[in-house]
């Protein structure tokens, strides 16, 4: 009886989650997006995919192996666990311990299934690289699929446990050590797999990872003081698609899950720990640029979005054919400006700014300057990498780096809201 009630609650919440995604899809993706974006991208990707199966690459196998395994290592760190708990649960539901644990168990089971499906999709995409380009046997490819899927879930579980125990700089130190350790273990396991190539050993290592994962999930389930922590994460995950959609449209209104941060979290920032000033001479403009820089750098989410974007784009520019490189370069400038535009609008719309009396024209000027100054190094790096790869001369990096800055300077005011 108890289990049935919890199952019903869980099913309702999962159903509601998918209804929200469907609703968001209906609101954001129309036939224009299908016609000009999704269908052309799908056709090009499908053609490229068939090419991968049929034509061997010019790259050395060791290089392909290194890049593929490095990609899979980063993929391990992208997982999450949905528990489907809600804020209202603390009113009464949480006191029914068995029911509440069962709800979280269902959430974990659901998350492991989603994780496995997603990993399988990634492996279907990578299959031509692993099977054709690297000549991996089917057994190794399937074993690798299970290894990556379990590792991804394990890493997520450990991250959540660590996050519940440490905060601020302590978390970053412990988590960095964990990443280093996991990189060593990951490389060592794969080295042993490929050098010994013993099926029993491979199955045994996957089994050990699975048991370890289950034990840690049980531990996580019984952590008693993590409700607020879990809830904050849950709300963040629940609204992430909506946040992405709003961000990509440069709109505001994404739910402020940050408000739920528990009090013991992050009292001081490690960046400008003593509220240090960036500019020696303080004017309204320099103050605005300064708060924009701190606004971006001190927020983990914003920092990560920029870093991932820059990293991903560099990766794409390096790998793509020459003509595509040019397209990526110009698209990158537009995407970065769009992102900056979103963040600066968010900063500008904050109620705190409304405490002061602003001249709208001046505020527009300040935000323009802030976006330009902050984007300067990012845009230069992207232009420089593109230039070094596209222009066959030593000054290529410089000309495209500076060119990117000029383009940014010219088009940025038109993109700002």
């Amino acid at each position, binding site marked *: 009886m108890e289990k049935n009630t919890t199952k019903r609650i869980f099913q309702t919440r999962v159903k509601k989650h998918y209804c929200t995604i469907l609703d968001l899809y209906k609101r954001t993706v129309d036939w224009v997006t299908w016609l000009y974006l999704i269908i052309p991208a799908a056709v090009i990707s499908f053609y490229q995919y068939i090419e991968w199966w049929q034509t061997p690459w010019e790259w050395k196998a060791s290089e392909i192996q290194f890049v593929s395994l490095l990609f899979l290592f980063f993929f391990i760190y992208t997982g999450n666990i949905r528990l489907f708990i809600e804020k209202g649960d603390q009113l009464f539901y949480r006191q029914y311990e068995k029911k509440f644990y069962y709800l979280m168990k269902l959430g974990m089971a659901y998350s492991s299934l989603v994780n496995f499906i997603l990993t399988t999709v990634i492996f279907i995409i990578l299959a031509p690289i692993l099977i054709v380009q690297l000549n991996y046997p089917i057994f190794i490819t399937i074993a690798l699929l299970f290894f990556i899927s379990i590792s991804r879930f394990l890493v997520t579980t450990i991250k959540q446990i660590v996050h519940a125990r440490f905060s601020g700089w302590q978390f970053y130190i412990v988590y960095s050590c964990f990443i280093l350790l996991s990189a060593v273990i990951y490389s060592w396991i794969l080295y042993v797999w490929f050098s010994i190539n013993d099926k029993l050993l491979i199955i045994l290592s996957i089994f050990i990872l699975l048991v370890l994962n289950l034990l840690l999930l049980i531990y996580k389930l019984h952590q008693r003081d993590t409700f607020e922590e879990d809830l904050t994460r849950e709300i963040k995950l629940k609204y992430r698609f909506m946040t992405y959609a709003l961000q990509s449209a440069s709109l505001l209104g994404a739910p402020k899950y*940050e408000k739920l*941060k528990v*009090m*013991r*979290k*992050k*009292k*001081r*920032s490690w960046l*400008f*720990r*003593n*509220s240090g*000033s960036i500019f020696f001479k*303080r*004017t*309204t403009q*320099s*103050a605005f640029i*300064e*708060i924009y820089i*701190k*606004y971006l*750098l*001190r*927020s983990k989410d914003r920092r990560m979005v920029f870093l991932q974007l820059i990293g991903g784009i560099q990766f794409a520019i390096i790998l793509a054919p020459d003509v595509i490189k040019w397209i990526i370069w110009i698209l990158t400038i537009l995407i970065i400006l769009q992102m900056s535009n979103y963040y600066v609008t968010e*900063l500008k719309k*904050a*109620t*705190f700014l*409304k*405490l*002061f*009396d602003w001249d709208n024209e001046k505020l527009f000027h300040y935000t323009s300057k802030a976006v330009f100054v902050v984007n300067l190094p990012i845009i230069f790096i992207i232009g420089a990498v593109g230039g070094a790869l596209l222009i066959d001369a030593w000054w290529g990096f410089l000309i495209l780096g500076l060119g990117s800055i000029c383009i940014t300077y010219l088009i940025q005011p038109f993109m700002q809201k």
Partner: protein
Amino acid sequence: MKNVLEVKIERAGYHDEKNTITNIQFDVGEGELVGLIGANGAGKSTTIKAILDMLDIDGTILFKQTSGKRYAYIPEQPTFYEELTLWEHLAFAATVCELHETEWKKDAKKLLEDFRMEHVIHHLPSSFSKGMQQKLMIIIAFLIKPKVYIVDEPFLGLDPKSTKQFLRYIDQEKKRGAGILMSTHVLDTAEKICDYLLLIADGHIKATGNIEQIRKEAGLPNGSLLDCFEELVEW
């Protein structure tokens, strides 16, 4: 007494026509504390938002200030940047309001001491309690030293010591010549400190005047503001 704020709202509200306020007219004079009193949803916050130009409005709002800082606003819900420390908020406010560096730093130090916040100056306000966040808002307002203060429910979350300190500063600012518009539910305090009261219900002004005039209107010569409020405003 010269007016520092003149409010003549014929109509103001949200696009959906809910929470609309009509015919709200009053002035705030130099050194005067005007209390905006009303039940939940009566239109107090809507009035404040209309004054701060955050809503569609038919009418005029006049800040009788020729230059410099027009107002300081203390909102009901503390608002701040999660990524800036307490000190950075103060520095930003001081820079935007073009305050003299040596002076504002001295004032800020005094305010931080008086509100017992000096030990958290380099902390992020998101780690503060509700009361401490409210104190941040209060400190910023008193640091700016404007001609008009617009204060929305300032006592929420404040401990008794800070409430007393806040009232002391309000009194000091009145003496300096600042006009204060304050919305509150704390009627016994409002009765003691407000020079002029505006009783709002259903988006209209139901009664205005000092406490004596309100008592007279309610027909309760010795009644408290709460009694008068109960008498004058239909629930």
